[in-house]
């Protein structure tokens, strides 16, 4: 396979403060982040001709409306859309921005995510107390008390551990690896050292998952500016190039012969993205996974071709994904210990790493970084291959 030229580049990154209390509505946070991203890219508002909105599935439309265009002062748009594919949306906005730039529909596209799961009278736990629609129109989840996304991932985790004859230490190893990265990242929210002994001693929340296996929600917004590779050279920040993009949506088939919890669309998303970039999984230097729950990191390491099936736990326990390991994963602490802003979390960390701005946790070689998003109960997947050099070594 021959390596290929980049498709587009991310040249602007804007982030609000990430808070554990309610300060501003999502639309206002989004507008702030958009302004920061445009300034970071060395552009003016009038330069922006595309806006793609990643609305949180939990947010109400009034908190994140199309009018963010106006609130952010953008009146010169030839591309405007809400991109809705749950947790895979942020990666998908960057994919759609890239396609729009390549086709000529737009030249400088802002992609933005904002959410405020923590409200004045609502804890982050209650904010996610939704009935998980695992059985489609049967709707039986309410009668069974099957509430919160945690349960869907606990179901996947139990299946994974049983099929591969593993223990919850595999999950704990992911939590510990993330925490070790978070210790190095000033943006991360949970930075107190975490040992496997402490993990084992923590009570189950929805068995086999503990609180430590779950994302740490914050209120905040992240925006990026995507442009073409020639335009990117004019911008002040080092471009974060996009080399490959893929999606995979394998459905939710609940019958014998199918394991939707484990055989997800991540495999297809990875294969398409690797092929587009002209690389294989062996070329990946680091990963920024969407990791709202520890189990998904194990399954994604396997489906993206970075570990054999059932062996991701050993890989993580051996420290390979931790600081100093052979395949750094979620180098800002990820969703578990960093900050949970859905698909914007892995994207933001990837950009900081590629720009050599990941203070305290900077990686050296970043020719190819895998950046992913997934949504629902892991049925919607999108992936990017990003890197720091236009011509790769």
């Amino acid at each position: 396979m021959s390596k290929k030229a980049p498709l587009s580049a991310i040249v602007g990154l804007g982030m609000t403060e990430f808070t554990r209390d309610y300060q501003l509505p999502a639309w206002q946070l989004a507008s702030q982040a958009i302004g920061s991203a445009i300034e970071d890219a060395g552009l003016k508002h009038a330069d922006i001709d595309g806006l793609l909105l990643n609305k949180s599935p939990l947010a109400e439309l009034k908190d994140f409306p199309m009018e963010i265009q106006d609130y952010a002062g953008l009146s010169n748009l030839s591309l405007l859309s809400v991109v809705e594919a749950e947790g895979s949306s942020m990666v998908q906005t960057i994919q759609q921005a890239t396609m729009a730039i390549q086709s000529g529909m737009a030249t400088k596209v802002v992609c933005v995510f904002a959410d405020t799961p923590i409200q004045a009278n609502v804890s982050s736990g209650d904010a996610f107390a939704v009935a998980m629609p695992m059985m489609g129109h049967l709707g039986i989840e309410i009668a069974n008390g099957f509430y919160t996304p945690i349960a869907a991932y606990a179901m996947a985790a139990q299946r994974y551990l049983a099929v591969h004859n593993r223990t919850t230490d595999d999950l704990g190893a992911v939590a510990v690896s993330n925490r070790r990265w978070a210790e190095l990242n000033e943006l991360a929210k949970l930075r107190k050292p975490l040992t496997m002994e402490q993990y084992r001693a923590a009570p189950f929340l929805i068995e086999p998952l503990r609180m430590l296996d779950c994302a740490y929600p914050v209120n905040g917004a992240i925006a990026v500016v995507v442009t073409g590779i020639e335009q990117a050279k004019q911008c002040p920040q080092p471009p974060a190039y996009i080399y490959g993009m893929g999606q995979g949506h394998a459905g939710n088939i609940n019958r014998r012969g199918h394991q939707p919890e484990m055989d997800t669309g991540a495999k297809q998303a990875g294969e398409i993205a690797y092929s587009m970039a002209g690389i294989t999984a062996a070329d990946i230097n680091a990963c920024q996974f969407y990791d709202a729950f520890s189990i998904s990191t194990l399954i994604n390491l396997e489906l993206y071709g970075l570990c054999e099936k059932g062996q991701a736990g050993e890989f993580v326990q051996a420290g390979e994904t931790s600081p100093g390991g052979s395949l750094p994963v979620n180098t800002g602490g990820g969703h578990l210990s960093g900050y949970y802003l859905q698909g914007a979390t892995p994207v933001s960390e990837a950009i900081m790493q590629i720009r050599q701005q990941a203070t305290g946790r900077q990686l050296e070689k970043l020719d190819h970084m895998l950046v992913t998003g997934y949504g629902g109960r892991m049925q919607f997947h999108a992936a990017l291959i990003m890197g720091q050099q236009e011509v790769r070594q």
Partner: protein
Amino acid sequence: MKFAQADVIWPDIEEVARPFYEGMQQKKVMIQQCSACSTHLPPAQIVCDHCGCDELNWLEANGSGEIYSYVVYHRSFHPFFDDKLPYTVALVELDEGPRLQVLFYGDACVVGMKVQPIFTDVAGKHTLLAYQPAENA
């Protein structure tokens, strides 16, 4: 997505799912089958995921199956379940192939365990299919 509401302990039943709920009232486990390729499907589908046919029939499953996966709630996210902790929700793979999400009643749940149906009363108003370990397991 439907947020937890204190006074809601039973779903609004959609028309496509009604035979399953009516079956529960009669203590039957109802599934679907494709009229074209005979694939057994979990309720409530309108198209066969195997062949795309949209003529699906309802039939009564024999009821027995095995645990595909399960979770144990140690925290309640709905007041109705506050006094029921810990409770177990399982995916049961029926002998015919489809999987159902159910409450599990028993000392210990294990992936692969043979299970049989029971029908429980919910607030004196509804009959809910649940599962327990098979007697001959």
